[in-house]
């Protein structure tokens, strides 16, 4: 059984790595976008496992993107290194924010993160000397001069980092700490868990991942702008994906991202203005009818019939 499983993993890895050699450029681009949203959905879900909901994903995504692009442009930092630095910048920023706002719970934390994302956007728009103001900044060329194969590998690496981080958090004691904080904070505290420390830590890590994704995204498309890099899409779509797939797991957001990514690509061709409508409907329907998502619902069914 175990040997089979390893064989399956290796097979999937080989397929993912060699994907560029037998798909067209268009398909590769679609996969890039799906992987980016997949990583964002995972990072959002990782914070959610502690019971904290963040609406500020777009803010940290944008900060990472701007940091990477500006460092590359003004300080001549290597693009790949600047992506990592973008992630670090978002992480440090999240640490500072987290120290101040992680006393808050539930809706107050959610609203504060949403407001902070807006604040970042306004600041970026109003510093034209540094950030290029409302028009944003355009890089002379995209990363790898737009080579789609190498771009795909970069995105794949980012997605794999997110999946690994999520799995590490699921398999170590951090998982138990976060789950107990989500279920009952008082009990968690009395079992000796430093609630605040863990929350700041997980907020920092997920923000760093979001910043890294933002940096990669900015380098792939070669530009950053206040409306584009801080677009509310980067908050909404990953949330819809994580919800549809199933929260509090690694495979939920992955499945959700794959399903929604493929569906939305079709819808984009059918209804160019308003395919986001489907995302909104999915959020509403998922919350109303199957709050556990695809993976959660299927998992329950399997458990009930005793197949696994």
């Amino acid at each position, binding site marked *: 059984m175990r040997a089979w499983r390893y064989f399956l993993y290796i097979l999937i890895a080989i397929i993912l790595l060699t994907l560029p050699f037998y798909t067209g450029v268009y398909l590769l681009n679609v996969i890039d976008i799906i992987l980016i949203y997949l990583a964002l959905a995972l990072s959002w879900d990782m914070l*959610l496992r502690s*019971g904290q*909901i963040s*609406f500020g994903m777009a803010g940290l995504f944008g900060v990472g993107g701007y940091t990477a692009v500006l460092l590359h442009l003004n300080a001549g930092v290597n693009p790949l290194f600047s992506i990592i630095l973008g992630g670090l910048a978002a992480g440090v920023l999240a640490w500072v924010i987290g120290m*101040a*706002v992680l*006393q*808050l719970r*539930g*809706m*107050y934390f*959610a*609203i*504060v993160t*949403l*407001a*902070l994302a*807006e*604040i970042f956007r*306004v*600041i970026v*728009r*109003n510093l034209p000397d540094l950030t290029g103001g409302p028009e944003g900044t355009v890089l002379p060329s995209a990363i790898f001069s737009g080579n789609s194969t190498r771009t795909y590998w970069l995105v794949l690496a980012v997605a794999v980092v997110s999946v690994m981080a999520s799995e590490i958090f699921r398999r170590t004691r951090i998982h138990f700490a976060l789950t107990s904080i989500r279920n009952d904070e008082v009990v968690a505290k009395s079992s000796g868990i430093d609630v605040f420390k863990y929350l700041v830590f997980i907020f920092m890590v997920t923000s760093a991942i979001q910043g890294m994704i933002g940096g990669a995204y900015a380098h792939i498309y070669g530009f950053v702008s206040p409306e584009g890099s801080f677009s509310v899409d980067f908050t*909404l779509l990953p*949330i*819809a994906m994580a*919800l549809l797939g199933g929260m509090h797991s690694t495979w939920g957001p992955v499945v959700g991202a794959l399903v929604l990514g493929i569906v939305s690509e079709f819808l984009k061709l059918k*209804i160019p*203005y*308003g395919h*986001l*409508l489907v*995302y*909104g*409907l*999915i*959020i*509403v329907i998922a*919350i*109303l009818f199957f*709050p556990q998502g695809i993976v959660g619902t299927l998992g329950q069914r399997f458990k009930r019939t005793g197949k696994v």
Partner: protein
Amino acid sequence: MSLIGKLKQRNYQIAFICLILAVLLGLWKPHVLIEGLQRACLYAVIALPMALILGIVGIINLAHGDFMMLGAYFAYWLNVYTGMDPLVAILPALLAFFLIGMASYRAIIRYVLGAPELNQLLLTFGLAMVLEQLANLIWTSRPMKLPLKYVSASATIGSFTFGTYEFIYVGAAIIVLAGLLLFLKRTSTGQAALAVGQNPRGAKLVGIHVDRTYLLIFSLSIALVGAIGAIFMTRHSIFPLVGASFTMKSFCLIAMAGIGNLMGILWCSLILGLAENFVLSFRGYAGWADILFFALIVFVIIVRARQRQVK
């Protein structure tokens, strides 16, 4: 009793700050005072129905501004097809949005009343997205505006000219606030709603129909905000995302005033409206005005959390 006393005290404090700010501004920059007053009342009148829902039904309706946007399009649409003046369209908008509010409560909101806060937030978030994209699909994202003559009315005092039509927001804010306060304090239905807001189970025990009260309050709030949309569209151009920023601002005002403090919302919106217009009046720094609301909401929420911890 002590809680009510405290709220009153707080209101007086805020009102006092307002007064000082207003006098200083009026002496220095009179147009900031007038326009700030008008803008503040627009914010207040939009925030009031949201505060009603949050205070009594206990749900943060993140689709609040989008209902206003729909109201604006409703009035626009009536004007295009029947030639009805948007200000007359307030009445049909009230009726139509009461029904829309009922429908959304019955179909969606009712099912998450007992659910975790996260689900409520996400649900109304999704609802907001649906409404925005629906408007985008039907009316496209092109800004629309009706050519109305009476909106550019102005008055001149000495060398100082200002628009008088915008005082309609001041009127609307006073009417809505007074109406809501009278409804909640003087009618038995309103008292029942207050009781439900304080303790749903207790209200049920004394024979109040809780679900029906929720339905009434939710529909009433949506009706109000739809009607405000009709007023809003006479002066401003409308597009599908026009309401989204008002949702955040309304929430900010409610968080600042404290949940259940309707009168406080008016004072808080006065402070914010004046401050925002004050920043806007400096040439070259107008872009920073947007940050005021968001910075304030973060500040207020953090300070509130600290206060609660100290106690």
